[in-house]
Every structure is written in C-alpha cells, then in structure tokens.
C-alpha cells in the first residue's frame, strides 16, 4: 500500500468558469481552505455535497468528507471538525435546515466558526423540493431556541455564490460564529460565467488563538474583548466548551451576571462588525420614487422590472440585500425612508417584517408562492400601480 501515492488535484481552480451556483459554492469552500464537509443528501443542495465528495479528499491538503446519517449529525460533526482549528461546512435545504437548528444553537453558544449553506426550496414540510422559495429568512434568525444572531448572506448570481461563500468563511473565522449563505433552487442549477480569482488576490482570514489574539479582517483589528481567542483541541490547552451558560474560560456558570454578560457579548460582536459584511446593491435608487426591495434570485427579476419601468419613464429602483442578518437597518432607513416601497419575495411575508419595522411606513408586497421567481411583468405592473 505504501507504494501507492495519491496524485493530488489542485485545490483551487483559478480562472474563468462556466458552471452552477452550487458548483461555485463548493469551489469557494475549497478556495477558503475547507477541511471538513459533513452532509446529508437533500434537493436542491445535493450537488454541493457531490462536488466536494469528489474533490475534498483528493486535493492538495486533503480534508475529511462524511455522508452523515442525518442533518443533526452533519451540523454536529461540522462543529467537531471546527474545534480542531479547521474550516468546516455543510449545505442543506429547508427540511435539513430545520433539523440543524439544534446544532446551530450549540455553534453560536460555543462560538464555533462554520458555514451552513441553505439552498432554499418551497416549504413547509417536504413542500416543493425542486422549486425555489425564500421561506427561511426568519428561520435563519430565529430557528433555534434562545436569542442569538447568525450573520446571513444572500447571493443572487453564480459569481456571488463564490464570493459570498468566501466572505462567509472569513466572517465565521474572524468573529467565531456560524455564518449562513442563503441561496435558492434557481441559483443552485443556474449556469453562468464566473471567475475564480488567483489565490493571492483574495484575503483569507483564520480565527485567533491564544498565541495570536490580534487578527485583522478587512484592515480592522478584531477586538479580543468581543471575540475571544479560541483554544482548540489537540493543542495542549485542555480546552473545554459547553452548551450550558459559561464564563470566558468556557466552564459552566449559571449565574445571572455571567449569563447576561455572555449573551450581550455574543450579540455585540456581530453588530460591532456588521459594516464589514457584504453591502446592499443599490440600483437607480437616488432619484427613484418607487423602490423594490428584494434579495436572491427574486432580485434578478426585480431588476428587469425596474429597467422596464424606467424605459416607460417611471422612476423605479432596486435595493438588493446581500446581508440579510444583521438587517442593514441604518442604511435602509437612510436610503429608502419616504419612498414608495415594494417588497418582493418568494414567501407569503418574511422580508417585509424587518423592512416595515425599520422604515415605519406602509410597504407594498408581492409574496409569490408559485414555485418560481415572480415574473418581471408582475413586478413591473405593481411598480406602475396597474394591479
């Protein structure tokens, strides 16, 4: 057996590609330094898993791949992998995302860097497995019990599936937190041209350690008061972590002061650095009277509708969220308050909640539930005030 030597594939496929959103997510994870993928097959996320099953164990600096017995095991094994100071992820879709909520709570509370990609399909329950929806926006924020916040990014094209997956790994490492990437069934299979940059052109962040407590991300030093340096396993540190309330050493402490301090710090660390998260795309909003607010593949249709309306002389614009949580409330208030707002989503009403809450004004809504992206004509008519 010792004569056999594996011929390693390159880990990074630099250069232009023509492929799907799921392919881009998988390659971005390898680019970011993924070491462990643990997952369970579920449509429409499965091709991420298939791609990594055929790549991760065979590339330079190979990593671990496991097809777990369910999504609870997947997310928990991802947490285990991360505690060896290695980057780890899983990808899933609605029903699997529900099963993962338990582990997501554990990951937030033990401050475990990891990435979960949720390729959204129609729910509830088994729902519409092979059709797109956007019904897990609130679950991304409130899905697990207890208060917590997980940074949640939402791409709307294949290039962004790549870029925001890298951003997700960086944010997770910099802030010691799980990070979600919400894509949808359209993006999972949509093939587009995209570019995998050269390694030296992209900043990759690695979590802090007791030896190196001062890491930087996008030029900012991450405060070690907010993000504690991480002791990992196998580093002679007698590390300990628990899902119970704990002090800064990680040990159980159920006292009121400790719990309150911990809960506030966990929230604070995300909010303090939210300006480093992906910024919204603001398309023709400066002079717009009517602005469509959308994210993900819905925003592709919305942009088309905005362009059509502009051709007819209507001052329409698009505000496309790329970071969903924490919600960019200051920016949305500053950019949109007072304008006529139409929220468009493939849900009977999730994105509209934070938009209404922060703008404190009437908001119109298209909640499209037909297992496809709302057609541009529908959005254009709403902009025109026809229906």
């Amino acid at each position: 057996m010792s004569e056999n030597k594996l011929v390693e594939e390159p880990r990074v496929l630099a250069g232009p590609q023509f492929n799907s959103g799921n392919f881009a997510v998988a390659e971005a994870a390898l680019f970011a330094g993924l070491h462990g993928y643990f997952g369970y097959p579920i449509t429409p996320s499965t091709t991420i898993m298939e791609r990594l099953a055929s790549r991760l164990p065979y590339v330079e600096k190979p990593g671990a791949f496991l097809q777990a017995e369910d999504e609870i095991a997947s997310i928990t094994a991802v947490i285990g992998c991360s505690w060896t100071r290695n980057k780890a992820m899983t990808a899933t879709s609605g029903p699997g995302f529900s099963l993962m909520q338990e582990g997501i709570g554990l990951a937030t509370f033990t401050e475990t860097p990891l990435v979960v990609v949720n390729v959204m399909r129609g729910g509830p329950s088994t729902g519409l497995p092979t059709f797109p929806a956007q019904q897990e926006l609130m679950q991304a924020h409130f899905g697990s019990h207890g208060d917590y916040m997980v940074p949640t990014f939402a791409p709307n094209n294949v290039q962004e599936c790549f870029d925001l997956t890298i951003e997700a790994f960086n944010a997770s490492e910099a802030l010691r937190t799980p990070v979600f990437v919400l894509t949808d069934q359209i993006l999972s299979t949509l093939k587009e041209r995209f570019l995998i940059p050269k390694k030296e052109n992209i900043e990759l962040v690695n979590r802090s350690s007791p030896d190196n407590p001062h890491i930087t991300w996008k030029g900012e030093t991450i405060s070690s008061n907010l993000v504690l340096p991480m002791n990992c396993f196998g580093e002679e540190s007698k590390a300990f972590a628990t899902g119970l309330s704990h002090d800064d050493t990680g040990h159980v402490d159920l006292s009121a002061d400790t719990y309150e301090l911990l809960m506030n710090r966990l929230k604070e660390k995300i909010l303090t650095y939210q300006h480093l998260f992906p910024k919204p795309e603001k398309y023709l909003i400066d002079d717009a009277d009517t602005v469509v607010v959308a994210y993900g593949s819905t925003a592709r249709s919305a942009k088309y509708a905005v362009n059509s309306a502009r051709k007819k002389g209507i001052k329409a614009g698009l505000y496309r969220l790329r970071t969903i949580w924490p919600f960019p409330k200051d920016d949305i208030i500053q950019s949109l308050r007072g304008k006529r707002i139409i929220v468009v989503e493939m849900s009977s009403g999730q994105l509209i909640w934070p938009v209404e809450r922060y703008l404190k004004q009437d908001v119109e809504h298209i909640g499209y539930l037909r297992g496809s992206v709302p057609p541009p004509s529908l959005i254009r008519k709403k902009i025109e005030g026809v229906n």
Partner: protein
Amino acid sequence: MTLPMFVETHPRDELVRTERLPHIWCPGCGLGNILSGFTQAIINSKGTIPIDNQVVVSGIGCSGRFAGYVKVDSYHTTHGRAIPFATGLKLANKKLNVSVISGDGDLMTIGGNHLIHAARRNINLNVIFVNNFNYGMTGGQFGATTPHGAITTTSAKGNYEHPFSMPYLMASAGASYVARWTTLHLKQLEKSIENAFHHDGFSFIEVMSPCPKGFGRKNNFKTGLDQMRYFESASLKSDNINLKEATASMKLLDNLPVGEFIIDNKPSYLKVKEATILNNGGRT
C-alpha cells in the same frame, strides 16, 4: 498506624479539573468510579498515547457532565449528539484519541441513530456507555435500557416496554470491540478502556452503574451499595456468551453477563478509507 485525615492531592489530580469540584453527582452514583477508571487508563496508556492527544466528548445528563471534570480537551454537546461531534473531531485530526462518555438515555435513546451508524462504520472512537437504566438528571424516567417491569416516574406501575441489550445491538451493528462491566469491576474496566484506546476501530464498553436516587430506590436497591452488592452476586464473566443472552434484567435471580465479548480485527473506517482513496476506488 495513623492515617492522615486529609491528603493534599489525589494521584490522578493531573487528569481532573479539581477547580470544578465538588462534582454534581449523588452519593452512591457510579460515575465517580468511572472517572477514576478512565483517568487511570489514560495514565496507563501514557507511553503510547500522549495525554495531550486524549479527548473526551459527552452529551447531556449526569454522565454528560463527565467532560467538564476530566482534564483533557473536552466538549459538552447537545442531547444525544456526542458521537457526531466526536466523529467530526476524529476525521479532522486523526492523531486524537477520542472517547465518548455519556449515558444510556443520551447515547441510545435520543442518540441511538448516531450510535448504530458509528458502529456500522467501525469508526475509530471509544464509546463508554454508562448505563444506569434511567434518566437520572430529569428525575428518573424510563429509557431504552430500562428493564421490563421496572418502576420509574413515567412507568409507575412497571415499564411495559422492552430494553435493548446493548452488547447484542452493538455487535450486530458492526462494533469491533464490545465489552461490558459494572462499576464494581473497576480493574477490569480500567484494562478494558486501555484495550479500547489501543483498538483500531469502534470500541463499545457498557458500564452498568448504580443510580440510587433515580432508579435504585424504586427497584429494590435502596442505596448505591445495595446495587453494588447485586452487581457482585449477579455478575458472571462470560466472554464467549451468545450475545442474545447478554441481558440486564436487574432481577435478583438473573445473571448479569459481563466480559470482553467481541475483539474483531476487521479494518477500521480510517483504514478502509485511506486504502480506498489511495487505490482510487479499489476495494480492499
């Protein structure tokens, strides 16, 4: 000869997070014995497995608190999920010697799916399954190993479900090392844990343990000592037993088979995986 009233340190203090003591376990509970045997096995294995490579993962419940007391890298997961966490650790860093120590309710009842799949994979983990026949921390409810007929707070007139025989189940699922002891068999347990550390594959050790508050006092074992006396009289070393008969009825006249039931040198998960990848898919 006069014995000192107090000792400054215990010989195994280097492996106990002494600042976390006193522990939360009740008088008469067997978990202290298991902590003692486990830490001694770590010391005995020092020559081959550096202490810094030892890891303990626990779930939820009384046994779940094990991770917080043993002074090696350790993690206290959610209920039933110690094995998936341990799997992620082991696959990501093969040099770690990963032990899962948790209770019957945690590992078998809520976490049973993970347990049988880990055994099926013959993955390189050591599982120390503390069986106290009930959910102790929540006040003594029945679980998947509670004997038929036993009184618990959710089976006040007797448990009308049937328990798993853990050695039989684990052997059928594919575990390549299967042993069973009670907390009375401290030396055998210690040796068994050492054997598990050095076994290449999935090791499963069931340790039957007294729980006077949750289980014993309702089921003819008024104190921890009474249940230990039962272990003494009923235990029967039977390494070669047909595992179908490896039951644990906790009834006064029934035997309690203990021993090292299975030592199988079939290739472990990591060995098969490595060979498969090196051979580009060829079967071994």
